[in-house]
């Protein structure tokens, strides 16, 4: 019996959300008195794999088949199922990403396992139970769920667990081959287009997000958002009307109809704080609101607020942020 963590790569490195999943998986392994193995697929540097030891992973199984460099659900599922079988894994851990949740759901069917996505706590295992807490009702509540099958599959909410940075041991990397057939790639993407992430910070994974709304008046003023984001090492986001107006691309739109983010810090500039917007950001740890209207509803959900004109306030913030020693 062991814990198996699936880690996703990006540009040869392991995604932050997968490092969080690895840290989570090794803590579960400790609780259960076993070890944690990771399985990696596609283009990841060997050093990045070995460094998973820092997260408490003792062994990494790596399938370097280049056809896996892009996401193909059926093939990924086959590789992970093979690793799970080889390791007699009873607990499988994923990042709650589009890829992680997809393969986790398919594996729940294939391995006849219990699945919990959007998980925010380590399992409670008293009395032979296995209970995790997961975010429900779009950030408005948490539910405790008992996973009752023999195999338990967990997709860990982004930014809910700390990545360990204590240096330390390296993981042993072993080759894994799942003997994939052409049929496993039948639904392979025609094309994969990656965004130009400029600083490399993906919005869904970011620890800090600077977000702009209609109060910024037009796309020509977005340097305010971008410069503050750059100074803080943040990703940029926006409200729905801003992407509807094509001031910003759709993938930056957060909220009920956009993506959900849960950074440590969310800075909202010129956003009124409509409930549909809050639904995508309300699990951020600290919320800062900058708005010229003291009655803006967003202030009710904020930890820090500044009532003022963004065009005066934000340049001051950029200056102060640049002066911070890193």
């Amino acid at each position: 019996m062991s814990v198996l963590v699936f880690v996703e790569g990006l540009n040869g490195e392991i995604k932050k959300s997968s490092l969080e999943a690895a840290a989570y998986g090794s803590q579960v392994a400790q609780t259960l008195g076993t070890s944690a193995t990771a399985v990696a697929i596609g283009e990841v540097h060997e050093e990045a794999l070995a460094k998973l030891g820092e997260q408490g992973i003792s062994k990494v199984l790596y399938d370097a088949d280049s056809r896996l460099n892009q996401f193909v659900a059926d093939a990924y599922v086959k590789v992970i199922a093979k690793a799970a079988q080889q390791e007699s894994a009873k607990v499988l851990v994923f990042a709650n990403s589009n890829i992680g949740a997809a393969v986790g759901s398919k594996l729940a069917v294939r391995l006849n396992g219990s699945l919990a996505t959007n998980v925010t706590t380590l399992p409670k295992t008293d009395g032979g139970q296995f209970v995790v807490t997961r975010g429900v009702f779009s950030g408005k509540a948490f539910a405790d769920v008992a996973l009752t099958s023999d195999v338990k599959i967990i997709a860990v909410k982004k930014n809910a667990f700390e990545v360990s940075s204590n240096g330390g041991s390296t993981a042993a990397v072993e080759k894994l081959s799942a003997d994939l057939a052409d049929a496993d790639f039948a639904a392979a993407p025609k094309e994969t287009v990656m965004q130009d992430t400029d600083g490399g910070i993906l919005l869904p994974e970011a620890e800090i997000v600077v977000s702009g709304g209609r109060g910024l008046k037009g796309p020509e003023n977005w340097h305010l958002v971008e410069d503050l984001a750059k100074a803080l090492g943040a990703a940029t986001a926006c409200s729905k009307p801003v992407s509807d107006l094509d001031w910003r691309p759709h993938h930056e739109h957060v909220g009920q109809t956009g993506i959900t983010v849960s950074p440590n810090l969310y800075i909202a500039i010129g956003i009124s704080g409509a409930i549909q917007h809050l639904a995508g950001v309300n699990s951020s740890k600290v919320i800062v609101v900058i708005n010229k209207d003291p009655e803006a509803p967003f202030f009710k959900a904020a930890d820090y607020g500044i009532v003022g004109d963004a065009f005066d306030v934000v340049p001051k913030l950029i200056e102060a942020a640049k002066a911070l020693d890193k």
Partner: protein
Amino acid sequence: MKILVCISNVPDTTSKINFTGDNKEFDKNGVQFVINPWDEYALTRAIEIKEAKGGTVTVLNVGEADAEPNIRKALAIGADDAIRVNAHPKDAFFVAQQITAVAKENNYDMILMGKESIDYNGFQVHNMVGEMLGIPSVTPAFKLDMVDDSTARLEREIEGGKEVVEVKLPFVASAQQPMSEPRIPNMRGIMTARTKPLAVREPVGAEAKAEYVGYSKPEKKGGVKMIDPENAGELIALLRNEAKVL
């Protein structure tokens, strides 16, 4: 083209969320239920494809009778008929098995869902159904077009980018913005919806694999600390030294 659209019946985003019975059950009291917002993108796209190519759109809900007003709403928007599997869903696996049972009997060309049900935020039913049926599941997709009568072209979001996928029918896909512009039912739609068929069927035997044992709510925020706009830079110091997030 025979299209199945799966809809869940969820509390409106503006609802206050409360629990009863020692925090063991969701309190439906005073809650307004709507069609899961993501499912509306799937429904509208299905209707658009039907309008262009001919065929039928069937909506499916796994739920109790109180979901019927929203099933009728889907009919008013333009679906042709509806099926309700009469069950109190226990978890996503249970729901996926019910959808799969209906799909196996009906040879749909495509099964469209929303990206995520905004009540239980599972993001899983579509991939489970795809796996149970042994057909591709493309999720979450923000673009769906027919290439020819047997092939669809979808664009799906992955973290940091997108993938363009072509799949043969049949397949499962889940929808997100901006796949379509959700429609509001018009008067004629509302009138005809009353007489469109809504079949109620009993669930197939299926087990749940996750047991919901209790709920809690996030801690209340401590209130907002206001900073003088003249000294806006002070915020950065507070974020570092007090909130410790920089």
